[in-house]
């Protein structure tokens, strides 16, 4: 076990993937000598060379589009999009080409591409640097979507994403980049990332979250416990496929569910979770599933973000509401 920040864990995971498979390549803007603006690729170009850790021209569609060609040639490109707000120029290549290519080819051509995107707010950034666009991708058949909640998860799931023969959009919760955890960087990677994880067991309310909001929900659960309300916390981890079995099981016990994310509530992941949970727990629910998330506004200037982002208090408020009935 080594204590690492999430940035270090990702760096270690990428390093191991580069070591394990010569077909793994990294591509992105400023990932070479600079090591990426968050230093996730620090030192990797030095150790693996410019042919495998590639500083690209400034063109996101170009990054994803050339990765499609590299994948056709048998490579496993791992792409960095510098910030969430800069993925949209590549949207066509992602949803039309990356997502559909295996299907369109009748299963002949695989697209083992990982697209890493630091996402979410809470770091006081300027605009276009704090968005949560995961619903666009989870709504797109053909893509897989993963997001780690902590350094340990990051170390393992980035390697699993790279090992997957399907394309994976890998959302990194940038506000948790500097959180430390003990990471087992020795044991072989095992388990499936395409499942949700119960990270805290409780009896009264099921809290569902992913990425940056897992920690927030754990803190809320802690606070609620002081008030005598016992909460489970489930980390979805995979947003496509969604593994709602554990959520359904838990809600059948608790009868109450709160789902939390940073993205706008309208058509956010919470809508899907609420719909499925309601379909499958209809006669167990004591209250409607409560969604906590972003308002229906563009991400605001950062001096507003503490009012925009879900926090412990807003989660507690939701817990109060679902337990009121």
């Amino acid at each position, binding site marked *: 076990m080594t204590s690492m920040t999430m940035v270090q864990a990702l760096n270690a995971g990428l390093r191991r993937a580069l070591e394990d498979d010569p077909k793994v390549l990294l591509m992105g803007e400023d990932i070479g000598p600079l090591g990426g603006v968050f230093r996730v690729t620090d030192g990797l170009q030095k150790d693996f060379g410019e042919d495998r850790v590639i500083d690209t021209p400034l063109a996101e569609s170009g990054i994803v*589009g*050339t990765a499609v*060609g590299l994948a056709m040639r048998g490579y496993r490109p791992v792409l960095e999009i510098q910030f969430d707000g800069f993925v949209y120029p590549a949207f066509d290549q992602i949803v039309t080409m990356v997502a559909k290519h295996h*299907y369109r*080819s*009748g299963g002949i051509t695989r697209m083992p591409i990982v697209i890493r995107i630091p996402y979410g707010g809470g770091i006081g950034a300027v605009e276009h640097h704090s968005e949560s666009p995961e619903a666009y991708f989870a709504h797109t058949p053909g893509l*897989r979507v993963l997001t780690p909640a902590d350094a340990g998860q990051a170390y393992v799931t980035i390697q699993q994403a790279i090992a997957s*023969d399907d394309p994976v959009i890998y959302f990194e919760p940038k506000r948790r980049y500097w959180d430390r955890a003990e990471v087992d960087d020795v044991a072989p990677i095992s388990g499936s990332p395409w499942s949700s994880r119960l990270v805290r067991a409780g009896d009264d309310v099921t809290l569902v979250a992913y990425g940056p909001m897992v920690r927030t929900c754990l803190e809320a659960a802690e606070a609620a416990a002081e008030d005598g309300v016992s909460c489970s916390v489930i980390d979805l981890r995979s947003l496509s496929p969604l593994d709602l079995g554990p959520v359904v099981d838990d809600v059948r016990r608790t009868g109450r569910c709160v789902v939390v994310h940073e993205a706008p509530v309208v058509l956010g992941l919470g809508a899907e979770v609420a719909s499925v949970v309601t379909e499958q727990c209809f006669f167990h629910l004591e209250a409607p599933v409560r969604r906590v998330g972003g308002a229906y506004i563009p991400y605001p200037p950062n001096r507003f973000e503490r009012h925009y982002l879900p926090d412990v208090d807003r989660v507690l408020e939701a817990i109060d509401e679902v337990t009121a009935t």
Partner: protein
Amino acid sequence: MTEDVVQLLSPDGERHDHPDYPLDCDHERLRALYRDIALTRRLDVESTALQRTGELGLWCPVLGQEGAQVGAGHAMRATDFGFTSYREVGIFQVRDVDPVDLLHLYRGVTHASWDPHQVGLGIFTIVIGSHALHAVGYAMGIQRDGADEAVLACFGDGATSTGDVHEAMVFAAAFAAPVVFFVQNNQWAISVPVARQSRAPLATRAAGYGIPAVQIDGNDVLASLAVTRAALDRAREGGGPTFIEAVTYRRGPHTTSDDPTRYRDQAEVEHWVALDPLDRLVRHMEIVGAWDAGFAASIDAEADALGERLRDAIRGMSDPDPMTMFDHVYAEPHAQVEADRQALADHLASDVAGAVETR
């Protein structure tokens, strides 16, 4: 800025030499070129007919562009790889893509039916311009493999306006990727004339990326062969990308759904009929003695057989098993797809679905 238009074969079948693009073309090769153009043309006619009778949903005619395409196809080595749009029927012909596979697509049975690795052609792309990037990426893979191969990236005049084609040229230049951009300037993007895409000749785009460019007579199969071959050789030798503009013309409608009378004069079409790529090849073959009636008859017979095979394969072809539409969404199992697959199976087995026919 660009050299003059390269032409090795004039419309009357006369052969010119070009200092930069020497070409030795024996009778066998001439016959092979003839055959590929003639069969492409027949496929075009047969497919249009199948569309008219409702057997296909759509067809994209290629009449007039076969010379450019067949020349470029012949320039490729077996190990080279090509990326095309829907239009490059002549290249599918040269690379031996089964035309029935192509028609499956227009019948709506599959999205693609050939194995790219077997024929050396990516499945084609309808979203204009996007495959130019795939071509460059594939070429970057060739580089990393140290392989003696090159990539041909085909697109139209309209595609040159897209951001993706630009980014493809930026990446190709940055990494000196072994790729040849082969643009068929057929003067039209559906109803929009090339002048709306560019006021300068398309070939002049390349210099700004540090990519050499050549303009060729796109109705001259020999110019296409010679220039594309030289560019692919250069790419394989590490010389980086080349940009070829084949100046040609789409004599048919954009697709079988199009009505070109709304936007262009028949006189313009007539002008290009006189420059037909097949006619000039035949004249040339006559001049050099590569033409004889028996050969022509054998190709006609082959074309007839092709037509018959297509009609037999497509007419009344049954629809695919609905359950197969869930196949290959992912390479590894995905719970949501499996759940949806099961739901359709249940639905098909249910009474309600049984009532479909009667309702």
